[in-house]
Structures are given as C-alpha cells and as structure tokens.
C-alpha cells in the first residue's frame, strides 16, 4: 500500500483537528497595557526563556503529526522506505499457460509483476523470474528494475513440476509470488479462511477471503472493491453497494438443503463474454452421483472425462447410456453430461450439462431441461475451450436480474495432470443439488509447485489411490485423499459417485487443471474456493517494526498530552490563584 491509499489519507484527516488545536493553543492572549516598561522590567528574566516555548510549540506539532503519520502508516499497512527489511531472495512465477491468453491476462500479469517489483521489493532483494512454461531468467537485484520480458502463452511441459522442485532444492527462496489468473487460498485458521490474493486483477470487486466460522456456523465472506469507483455486488441474493476501496464481510447461514452454498457475482456488467463472475460453492455432504453419456464415438473431451472414471476411490454409482438409448424416466438425482453435438432433442426431467466439442465452433442453445437449471448455451471453441453458462433460478430470480453464471472458459472441464511422477485425474465440476460449480480451469499445479517448493507440504513424490495427505495444499492443515488416478477407459458409459469427494485432478491435452475437494469431517475445512479476483495483499502485512513503533508512538503521545495538561493546569492555577496574593 502506498501513501495515496484511501485508508492512509482518511486517517491523515485527523491531522486537521490536531493542527487546529495547536493553532488555538498558539493564539496568544493579547493584552493592551499603558506601558511596557514595568513588564519588561519585571518579566524580563522569564521572557528570555521564551524561545524554548516557541521551539517546543513547533516540536510538539511536529511530534503529533509524526505520531499520526506513523499510526496511519501502521494502520494502512504502508511500507516506509526508510525502514527496510532484510534482503530476501524472491521467486516471481509468471503463469503463461493458455488460460492467461484471455482478456490480456498475460499482459496484466506482467504489469502486476512490474508493479510488485517497484512497490514490494526492497534494495538488496535478489529476484528470479520463472515462467510457468519453464523459462528462467537469471537472478538479478531489485535495484536493476524488472526486466523486459516478451511473454507469450505457451503450453506447460509435463516436467515443470519436477523442474520447479529442483529449483526449489537448489535455491532457497524467501518469498514466492505467483502472477496468475487466480489466487491462493493458502491459509486456514480455525476453519476460517483468509486468502493471500496475489495475482492478476481481472475485476474490480473480488472475493478475498471467507470460510465457515466454526463458532457461529455461519458462512463469512470478505468482499472488497478494488476499483476506483463504486460497484454493486450481489452476494447470496443480497445486494451490496461497495464504495471504491471498501470491503465488507457478509455473513449468512448455510443453506441447509444444499449444504453450504454461497455465490456472488459482479454487476451491472452482464455481458457473458466479458462479465467476470466468481462463484463459490461449499460442497454438501451428500454423495455425488454422476452420469456420463456418450454417443459412442470418441470425443476428445468425453474421452478424457471417461478416463476419470475409475473403479476405485469410492465411485460406485455409475451408469452409461448411449444417447439414443436414454430411458424415458430419469433419476433427477443424477447429472447428465452430454456432448452438445449429440444432445437429444428432448430430454427427460433431470439435470444436464452440455460439454464442448473441439470440432464445433457454433454456440448451441438449449431450452430449459428442468426447473432450476437451464443450459443457456454452450460455445465450443478451438482447442477444446468452451464456456458454460448455467442459469439457476432457484436462489436468484430472473426478475431480480441476478444470474449466477458459471464459466469454464478453458475447457475441457475434465483434465489430467501429473505431479511428482504420479498422474492425477479429476472431474472439473461437481453437482450439489441444484448448485453447480464448474471449477475454473486454473493452473493449480503452478501454485502447487510453489508451495511444494516452499514447505514441501503438498503431495509426496509417490502417491497411491486412497492415500491421505495431511496439511496439504490447498487446505492448509487439513486432509486430502487421492480418490483416483487417470486410467484409459473404453468408450461407452461409466457413472461414478464420489461418496466422499476427495481430490480429483485431470489432465488434458494442453491443459492442466485440477480441483481439490476435502473431506467433510467436522473438524476439517470443507470449503472449496474459486477466486478469480486479485488485489492487494491480504491480509495486510505487518512488519517487524510496526508494533514497537506504534507502541512507542502511542506512549509518546500520552506523555506529551500529560505534560501539556500539567503545564496548562499549572499555568491556569497560577493565573487564577496567585500564591502571593491568595485565591
């Protein structure tokens, strides 16, 4: 945070009454006398010390203002240039995966990197820049300034994970900063999340933290407007108006029938292509039945989706149908996943999602298929990217204009990854009653690698299905179980049910996306977070000098006021009750 931040300036407004008080105190009492002769004769010796009082006036005001500035800087989290920390070795990781191609994210990431370099780095810091594609720029000092980097979206190599691991072993970095299109829920405190959001700012209003308060059982979301203008936000059906730079914590009880669900989005920009929404789903504690329906031919997406379906890992409820063999009755508890190119003209009641096909570029609109869920359209793009927009009218009525929109901009939703020598497979969406989360295709493996490098608490080098890791990312001190690994399944149908959703990861051609779902034990965090915003560091960093300086400043202020009070009282008493003359 810099000195132009609103918080700092607002706190500095307190200087006005301080200066006014000093001006009042400086206002001399004017007395007209017949002659100055006797005063000069009588009060001359005392007046010779008047310069001390004049100096004290200036020093007192300066001290008060200095104390105020220090307090404001401490409260606003401003970095004071003179008080520098020890030099650090910093690793800046720039995500240049394909997801960064949209909306000039890569360009913004670079701008943010430069901004971070100029504001957060201090003299003496040694900085290494690592691109997610594997390129490494030589280490340089922070004084040299950020290098000119020609960033291009590239395809990450499968060996990047071990590569970063190697880097981490060879060079110990004090700080890791990731510039990507997401942020990092890295800290879990007693079931209440705080999110260290360092990344690319794609939106003005962001969800910067949240979780379930174990004491009250309520869901708490901290929302902040990072823009320089006011914005309206709809949070769990409630509309909020946030001023520029303002933040607010919204609390609401979990929705019983759907588990703990919260969602918000940005208004009034309602352009599906450009609108940037965030959606948060707290998973329910119910089993997740999934049905994949394939027309029987090899579809790039479905092929990978089917790869996820394993016989192990608690997925025991699965069905498969050919499109033309769909039964007339449909279990509404199941989710149907269709290749939109093969979507039947009429569907029985149920829940459906259409997935993109890489060979289709025309958007397809589908009418409502069941109350509460309606597939608006599915756009297929090149390289398998697609977008989903699902209108859910159960919580957000159309009349209010609140449409929680889910997007998976970089399909497919099912991908496969390989980290630490072990392949993972994950299904990129989940269904919770009528609440749907499409996990954004987000290069979690980059962040994962960073954390792996930092504290080696992520995934071990070797894992097996069913293994549980404690204190692993992204749940901090909680647990994650690997429920499945990628297998090559034949085409056809497979239905899976994740009774206890563990971690599902997926790897696709050119994509590496994953989502993590934790256990639902009462003592464990059960949040799955999707954050697409970025902004200032959260929580605000406190430096080592903050509390000693603030404490000393407060102590000094108290002493100053006490001294001035004593002087005033003494002078007042001397004026009113002359000891030589009596009261």
């Amino acid at each position, binding site marked *: 945070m810099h000195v132009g931040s609103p918080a700092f300036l607002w706190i500095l407004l307190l200087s006005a009454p301080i200066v006014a008080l000093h001006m009042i105190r400086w206002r*001399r*009492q*004017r*007395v*007209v*006398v*017949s*002659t*100055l*002769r*006797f*005063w*000069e*004769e*009588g*009060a*001359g*010796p*005392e*007046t010779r*010390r*008047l310069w001390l*009082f004049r100096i004290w006036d200036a020093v007192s005001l300066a001290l008060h203002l200095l104390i105020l500035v220090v307090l404001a800087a401490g409260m606003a989290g401003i970095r004071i240039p003179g008080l520098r920390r020890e030099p650090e070795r910093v690793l800046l990781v720039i995500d240049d995966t394909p997801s960064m191609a949209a909306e000039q994210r890569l360009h913004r990431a670079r701008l943010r990197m430069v901004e971070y370099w100029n504001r957060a780095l201090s003299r003496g810091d040694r900085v290494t820049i690592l691109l997610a594609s594997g390129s490494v720029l030589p280490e340089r000092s922070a004084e040299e300034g950020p290098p000119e980097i020609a960033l291009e979206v590239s395809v990450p190599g499968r060996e990047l994970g071990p590569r970063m691991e190697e880097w981490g072993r060879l060079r110990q970095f004090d700080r890791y900063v990731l510039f990507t299109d997401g942020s990092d829920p890295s800290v879990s405190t007693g079931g209440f999340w705080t999110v260290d959001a360092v990344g690319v700012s794609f939106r003005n209003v962001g969800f910067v933290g949240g979780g379930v308060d174990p004491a009250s059982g309520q869901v708490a979301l901290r929302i902040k407007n990072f823009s320089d203008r006011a914005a309206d936000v709809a949070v769990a059906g409630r509309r909020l108006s946030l001023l520029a730079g303002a933040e607010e914590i919204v609390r609401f009880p979990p929705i019983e029938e759907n588990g703990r669900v919260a969602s918000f989005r940005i208004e009034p920009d309602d352009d599906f292509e450009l609108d940037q929404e965030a959606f948060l789903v707290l998973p329910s504690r119910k089993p997740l039945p999934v049905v994949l329906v394939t027309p029987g031919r090899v579809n790039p997406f479905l092929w990978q989706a089917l790869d996820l379906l394993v016989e192990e890992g608690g997925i025991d409820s699965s069905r498969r149908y050919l499109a033309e063999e769909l039964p007339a009755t449909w279990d509404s508890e199941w989710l149907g996943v269709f290749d939109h190119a093969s979507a039947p003209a009429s569907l029985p009641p149920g829940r459906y999602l259409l997935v993109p096909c890489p060979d289709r570029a025309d958007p397809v609109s589908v009418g409502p298929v069941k109350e509460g869920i309606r597939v608006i359209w599915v756009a297929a793009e090149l390289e398998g990217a697609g977008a989903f927009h699902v209108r859910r009218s159960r919580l957000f009525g159309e009349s209010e204009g609140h449409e929680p929109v889910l997007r998976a901009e970089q399909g497919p939703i099912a991908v496969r990854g390989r980290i630490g020598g072990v392949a993972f497979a994950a299904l990129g969406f989940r269904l919770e009653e009528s609440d749907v989360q499409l996990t954004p295709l987000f290069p979690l493996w980059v962040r994962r690698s960073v954390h792996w490098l930092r504290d080696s608490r992520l995934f071990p080098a070797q894992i097996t299905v069913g293994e549980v890791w404690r204190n692993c990312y992204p749940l901090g001190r909680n647990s994650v179980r690997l429920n499945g690994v990628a297998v090559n399944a034949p085409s056809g149908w497979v239905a899976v049910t994740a009774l206890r959703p563990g971690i599902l990861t997926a790897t696709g051609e050119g994509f590496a996306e994953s989502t993590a779902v934790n256990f639902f034990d009462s003592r464990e965090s059960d949040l799955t977070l999707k954050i697409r915003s970025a902004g200032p560091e959260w929580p605000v960093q406190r430096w080592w000098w903050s509390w000693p300086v603030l404490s000393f400043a407060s102590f000094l202020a108290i002493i100053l006021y006490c001294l001035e009070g004593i002087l005033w009282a003494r*002078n*007042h008493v*001397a*004026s*009113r009750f*002359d*000891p*030589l*003359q009596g009261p």
Partner: protein
Amino acid sequence: MIGPALLSRLERLQVLARSVVSGAGPGKRLSRRPGRSLEFHDYRHYASGDELRYLDWNVYARHGSLFIKEFAAEENVHVAVVLDASASMSVGNPSKIEAAKQLALALVYVGLCNFDSAGLFTVGTRLEAVHPMVRGKTRIHEFLAPLEAVRAQGSTDFAAAFGVPLPTLRGRTVALVVSDFLDVEGTPKALLALLARRAQVHMIQVLSPEELDPVVGGRIRFRDAETGVEREMYVSARAREGYRRAIRRYLHSLRGFARNREIRFAQVLSSDALEQMIVTVAGAGILERS
C-alpha cells in the same frame, strides 16, 4: 454623570489652596492684597481721606501715632483641571479615561461652587483647553459636551506639554493633574515646569486594578497602548511579582517626588465609584471643606 446627592456634597468642598493666593477677582480666598474681609492684614500710617473707623485707637494711645488697620482681600483662584487624554488612559476595565473624566468634572464643579474660576484642559503631547476658565456653578453644563468628546488617543509627553509657555495657565493657578503618571521620564519634568510657573499642583493618579495587581498568565503578547509596540512575554507568577515590584517602586518614587515638593498626591482606581474617588482625593488633602 454626577448624581444630585453627590453634587450637593461636592458643593461643600473646595480645592485646597495651601498658601494665600493672589487672585484675579473677588472670591472667598484670602489674598495678599488688602481688602475688605474681616481678616487683619497690616497697619499703615493714616492718610488724609482714610476712614476713621479703621483707625486703631489702641496703637494711637500707646505710640501717639495714627495707624489705619488694613484687612485682607478675598479673591478667587484659578482651578485648572488637567486631564491626561493620552492613549494609555484607555486601558483598564472600566477604562481609566472614563473614571478620570468623571473625576475631572467633579473637580471642576467643586471649583465653580466656591467662586473660583475653573477650566478643563487635556494634555497629551501638548496642553489643550477643553473649556476655558469660567465662574459660577451654573455653567457646569458647559463642560459636559466638550468633556464627553474627549478621547484617549495619542502619546504622552508631559515634558513637552508643560515645557513651553502656557497661555492657558496663568499664575496663581491650582493645577489638578489627573493622569496615570506612567510617563516615567516626563512626569517629574512636567511637574517641575508647573511649579516653576508658581502654580500649585495636585496629582491625582488614576490606575486600573490590573495595573496594580495583574492576573494574566502564560504566553502573552503585550501591546503598548501609546507606541503600539508589541512584545511577547511569558508571564509566570515570578514575572507578575517582578512587575508588581517594579510598579510599586515607581509609585513609591513618585510619591516621594510629590512629597518633597509639597504636592498633594492621590491615587484612585478606575473601578472605584466616583464618590469613592472623591473621598480618596479629599483624604489626600486636595479637597477640603469650604
């Protein structure tokens, strides 16, 4: 300005003229000149045409020579009330000039009530007549408007004001100087100049209570009422005591100066009522029962 009760009391007073005066007209005060009062003045040889009733037959029986008894004449004196109208008199609450104007009017009335001729003058850097010498107490109202118009302004230079020939103040004048006498250097010179003109001088000092016992404290910017000079000072209890010592020392020297030159000196406060001021002035011997 003056109530009827106080006026009647003032009529019973007169300004003290400590020596036999040589007046300018008939009055109630004994003169050096022979006259027709009952007070014996001198003997002289009988001359043809003298009234025989003034012959002192006892002297004739003892010495065989004819002597005529002469009696002293009764004349009046000029009562000049000199009011300090410099800016320093504007200090105080109530201001010294207001108290001084009331007192000056009362003194003029006292002078008019005793067949003396009384006039009112202001002094700052020079002496100016507010109202010339007149006689008769009925003319007191002529003093009201000019006195009301007097404003305290300008600086004080008693030495310059009284150091030049004063056509307005002739000899045989009783000068009642009403001032704060805080012109430390000019006051003795002015009084000596008045005495050199054979005037009888009475000093009536008007001070405000704050000047004798200040209560201000802290950092104060003082401004000299006459010169406009400002000086910032820190006034502590010690500084106030130093001020009191300084002004008491000056007042003591001023009283000593007056005593050595047989000048009656009275000190009144601007916060005093007029009656109290009259009592103080009378107590100092400046006024006496007529």
